[in-house]
């Protein structure tokens, strides 16, 4: 049975769960940690490096020890903090980092070997000899790490949610609730976020008798405010939601666990939601985290943070010990003694490092008859799997006294939770009197209130919240809260005393843990300092202090204190390490949200896609497009299929889905002038109904795109771009128009998806268009190469161009997308008697390479000019200027021995070169200078041999000479040739 008057537990709802295969019971409202502690399970896991037995030390997200593997198979999740897991029916958890069991762990031998594993052990040991690292790594990887990641896909769904509000309040403790009430009365849109499953923050760990607000217990006060807030439409309260990132312009990210008490039942529902919040103002009321104390063997199960023990007592109704000792350097831990007193449990003793106890709480404890050892420290503890006793002694004396105990509550003071504040770029200040980093200067619309602002006394918190929140929100104080102002009695607090190292003399032969999760001891820090590491950032990385999954929430300030004490430097001069996002670990699933699998990237398909699938096409990704790669027939291999497609196209008729080519519609008075400026050749004299090939350069003179542009009317053109560059060309054209030439009247419209494009290639292509458009004469006189006609088929208007990317007679038909598939089917049936062969991108590449046509992005790589491509003919000499013109005469672009496009033929025609292969001179010496490389290489079925294109230094003048392609086991002899392998006289093209 739980103690009565607890705040979280519903004892009418019993829940069963499994830990390490054993069945236990808890209640609704429990966390896994509280349920385990209630069942007397203190030993939760083994530590990271030394495999020491470890138990839960806290009751929140700062927990370094109590981490478990949750659930099985595809649902499994490693490194979950038991203090954050809400208990649900049938939960399955396992201890981590132990073999064969948590009580008997083979790896614990590391604990005995600890003298051999000091800070930097891995760096020092596994560096030599260097080539052995690969051997070591295998073993280190096996020994390191905590839980196991799932091997199967996550069956859960995750969602992203955008939210805008006037005031975001993070944390629902006393200050957060108070701030929410003030903001709510101002009619502001308020979002209140709480990381735990219950509203209340520190209220949940308080008793019902002390620290009343306006005469009410904190729980009653909370209930009243919550009741008021819940009635308002402008206030939204979300629990189980951790704010994990605070970025620019008050953009914040939070992760919400939806129904965490449902476990794996919700596999078809959304498990977690990432909230993307834009807030006009942000109020941080994130509270503070208690610090452990650093003494020998301070990591045994049963040694816990004092306030967390109070939380288990008051919040969950669990009494964690019969013989309780408290070890502290400040007043707050005395509250835990008082909390136990209210439950009629008397504690053994309080050990306080301070000499004079001036505060109210110690006095109260003293009057309760509890033994207080002042000026005393704990030297050591005993108890293998649970604490059994503590060894205490007075400072500067040698007598050691042993106190038996089964629970040690410790408090080394408090660290304000300034993580989000510093993520917001806020600057911190170090406050000497209680060793706190407190918010100092803000750079966004941010306010820190309550203990995250370093205010710990209840009365001060209430006053500060009232004043600074009203000020922050520019509200009229008198009107706010209808005159109701909250107040409390003052509690006088005694001074805190620094106790970073209570037993400095014995540090070298002790295990005083600072970072529990990464097993970093005070000795490790001492070693790092003695080896010359000075910066806190370096000490952190060398010792790995604060680098575990808890990111040093309990250890960072202690490490600073120890460095300060050992080095004699002030903490304020040491600075802090960076508080990075996320505040607590976030699942990859949540960050990915819905953008997984088919939603990871947009997939674009053409109107003919279904036909390609039905006809066995394999697809190639070109940008976001799915393009048919080749169409194998009857288990045909790729080479055979491509050769068949290439041959059929040259011999008779091939058909290509060219719908993915970028199409830009240009209209306006000045389109001709615009084209003159962005292409290298002249456009003013292009007649209506004619097509022209153009090469587009960057202003550095390098080729960025090519394509055919058709003049549809006086002020109307249709530009085609390469498939992959359509968007970037469009955006670059807009850029020139808007920023450099606003005087030009040109309107650009992308029509890529409005038209499908069917390309008919080969000597018999004319037969098909003649059937499709019987009224049109397709002879060379009426419809010559590089011309355009607007025609109708079955009443559908088509734009037909005679242009070619294969060197064969070719007609490209642009037809509205919705009619494209039916026209394609019609072409296929009309072409049956001509062996019409659909071909994919691979055959398209071979066909154009046979003819020596370039592909931008294959023959060019951003460092190739049209001159390099031997395309002088397309670069206008008459135009005063065009984009890229001036750069073509820069000393580097104009020099003689630039790499130039040539054909490359292997002396042995059966060898197909690797694309990207290097070319060197026949007579050369080591180091062999590379004179060029292969850009395209294929087997040409029409020539019955291999062909290649390449860029070779001064290659145009070197045609006919030999080069060598060095490969792993042989040197391949090649000859430089013209890049046009088929039909150099254009007889086929113009037939």
């Amino acid at each position, binding site marked *: 049975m739980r103690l009565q008057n607890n705040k979280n537990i519903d004892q009418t709802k019993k829940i069963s769960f499994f830990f390490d295969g054993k069945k236990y019971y808890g209640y609704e409202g429990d966390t896994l940690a509280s349920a385990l502690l209630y069942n007397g399970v203190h030993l939760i896991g083994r530590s990271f490096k030394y495999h020491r037995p470890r138990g839960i030390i806290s009751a929140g997200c700062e927990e370094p020890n109590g981490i478990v593997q949750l659930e099985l198979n595809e649902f499994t999740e490693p490194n979950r903090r038991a203090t954050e897991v809400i208990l649900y029916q049938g939960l399955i958890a396992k201890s981590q980092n132990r073999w064969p069991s948590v009580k008997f762990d083979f790896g614990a031998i590391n604990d005995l070997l600890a003298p051999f594993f000091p800070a930097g052990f891995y760096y020092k040991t596994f560096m030599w000899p260097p080539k052995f690292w690969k051997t070591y790594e295998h073993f280190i990887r096996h020994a390191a790490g905590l839980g196991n990641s799932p091997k199967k896909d996550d069956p859960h769904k995750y969602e992203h949610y955008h939210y805008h509000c006037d005031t975001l309040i993070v944390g629902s403790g006393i200050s957060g609730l108070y701030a929410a009430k003030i903001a709510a009365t101002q009619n502001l849109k308020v979002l209140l976020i709480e990381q735990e499953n219950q509203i209340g923050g520190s209220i949940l760990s308080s008793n019902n008798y002390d620290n009343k607000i306006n005469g009410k217990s904190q729980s009653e006060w909370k209930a009243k405010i919550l009741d008021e807030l819940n009635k308002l439409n402008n206030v939204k309260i979300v629990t189980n939601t951790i704010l994990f990132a605070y*970025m*620019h*312009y008050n*953009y914040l990210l939070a992760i919400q666990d939806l129904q965490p008490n449902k476990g794996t039942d919700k596999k078809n529902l959304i498990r977690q939601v990432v909230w993307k919040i*834009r807030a006009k103002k942000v109020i941080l009321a994130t509270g503070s985290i208690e610090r452990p104390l650093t003494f020998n063997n301070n990591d045994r199960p049963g040694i816990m943070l004092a306030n967390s023990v109070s939380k288990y007592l008051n919040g969950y109704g669990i009494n964690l010990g019969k013989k309780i000792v408290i070890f502290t350097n400040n007043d707050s831990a005395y509250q835990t003694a008082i909390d136990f007193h209210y439950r009629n449990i008397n504690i053994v003793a309080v050990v306080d490092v301070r000499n004079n106890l001036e505060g109210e709480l110690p006095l109260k404890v003293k009057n309760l008859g509890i033994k207080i050892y002042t000026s005393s420290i704990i030297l050591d503890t005993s108890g293998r799997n649970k604490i059994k006793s503590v060894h205490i002694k007075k400072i500067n004396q040698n007598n050691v006294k042993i106190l038996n105990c089964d629970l040690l509550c410790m408090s080394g003071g408090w660290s304000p939770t300034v993580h989000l504040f*510093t993520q917001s*770029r806020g*600057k*911190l*200040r170090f406050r000497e009197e209680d060793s706190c980093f407190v918010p*100092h*200067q803000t*750079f966004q619309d941010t306010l820190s209130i309550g203990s995250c602002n370093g205010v710990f006394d209840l009365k001060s918190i209430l006053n500060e919240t009232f004043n600074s929140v009203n000020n922050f929100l520019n509200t009229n104080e008198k009107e706010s809260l209808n005159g109701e102002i909250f107040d409390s009695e003052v509690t006088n607090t005694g001074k805190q005393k620094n106790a970073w190292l209570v037993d400095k003399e014995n540090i070298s032969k002790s295990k005083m843990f600072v970072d529990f999760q990464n097993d970093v001891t005070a000795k490790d820090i001492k070693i790092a300092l003695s080896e010359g590491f000075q*910066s*806190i*950032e370096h000490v952190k990385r060398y010792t790995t202090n604060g680098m575990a999954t808890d990111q040093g929430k309990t250890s960072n300030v202690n490490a600073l204190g120890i460095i300060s004490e050992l080095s004699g430097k002030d903490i*304020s*001069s*040491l*600075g*802090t*390490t*960076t*508080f990075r996002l996320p505040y607590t670990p976030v699942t990859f699933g949540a960050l990915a949200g819905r953008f997984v699998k088919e939603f990871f990237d947009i997939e674009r398909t053409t109107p003919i896609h279904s036909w390609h699938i039905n006809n066995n096409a394999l697809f190639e990704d070109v940008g976001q497009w799915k393009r048919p790669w080749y169409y194998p027939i009857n288990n045909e291999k790729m080479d055979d299929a491509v050769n068949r497609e290439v041959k059929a196209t040259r011999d008779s008729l091939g058909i290509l889905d060219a719908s993915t080519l970028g199409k830009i519609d240009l209209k306006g008075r000045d389109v001709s002038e615009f084209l003159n400026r962005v292409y290298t050749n002249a456009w003013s004299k292009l007649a209506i109904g004619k097509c022209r090939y153009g090469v587009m350069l960057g*202003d*550095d003179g390098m080729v960025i795109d090519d394509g055919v542009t058709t003049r549809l009317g006086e002020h109307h053109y249709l530009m085609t771009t390469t498939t992959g560059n359509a968007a970037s060309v469009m*955006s670059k054209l*807009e*850029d020139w128009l*808007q*920023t*450099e030439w*606003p005087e030009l009247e040109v309107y650009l419209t992308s029509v890529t998806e409005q038209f499908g494009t069917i390309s008919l290639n080969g000597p018999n292509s004319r037969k098909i268009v003649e059937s499709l458009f019987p009224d049109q004469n397709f002879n060379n006189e009426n419809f010559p190469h590089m011309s355009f006609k607007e025609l109708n088929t079955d009443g559908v208007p088509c734009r037909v161009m005679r242009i070619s990317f294969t060197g064969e007679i070719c007609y490209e038909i642009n037809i509205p997308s919705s009619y494209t598939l039916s026209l394609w089917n019609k072409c296929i049936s009309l072409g049956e008697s001509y062996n019409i062969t659909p071909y994919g991108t691979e055959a398209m590449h071979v066909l154009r390479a046979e003819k020596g046509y370039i592909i931008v992005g294959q023959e060019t790589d951003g460092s190739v000019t049209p001159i390099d491509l031997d395309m002088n003919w397309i670069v206008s000499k008459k135009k*005063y*200027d065009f984009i890229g*013109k*001036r*750069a073509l005469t*820069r*000393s580097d672009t104009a020099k003689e021995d630039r790499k130039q496009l040539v054909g490359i033929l292997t002396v042995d025609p059966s060898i197909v070169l690797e694309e990207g292969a290097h070319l060197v001179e026949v007579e050369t010496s080591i180091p062999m200078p590379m004179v060029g490389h292969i850009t395209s290489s294929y087997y040409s079925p029409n020539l019955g041999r291999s062909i290649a294109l390449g860029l070779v230094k001064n290659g145009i003048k070197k045609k006919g000479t030999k080069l060598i392609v060095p490969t792993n086991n042989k040197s391949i002899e090649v000859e430089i040739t013209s890049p046009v392998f088929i039909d150099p006289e254009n007889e086929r093209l113009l037939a």
Partner: protein
Amino acid sequence: MLLINCPYCGEREQEEFSCGGEAHIERPKNPPDLNDDQWADYLFLRQNIKGLQYERWNHSFGCRQWFNVARNTATDEILAVYKMGEKPPVVESNDPITPCGEPAIGSGNFSTSKKS
């Protein structure tokens, strides 16, 4: 993530925009008259200021319009937004005052102490 006030559409998330580099670099009207150095200046040389920088931005997933932004690159604060063709507004420095004497503009917290 920035919140950018597009002069045509209003405040939108940064993910709708793309940055086009330094602003107010005009393409020369007389390229043939320029020597290689002058052309290289226009083509390649850009400022990379830690502090106030004038930049071109495009509302690429919105109205597709280009405009200019005055941004402090160290603090990511946007100080002004104005249309293409408009003169850059005079913006006062907004370098932060630092509490512990570390450089005025830097990253992280005060990890560097004042050297005496």
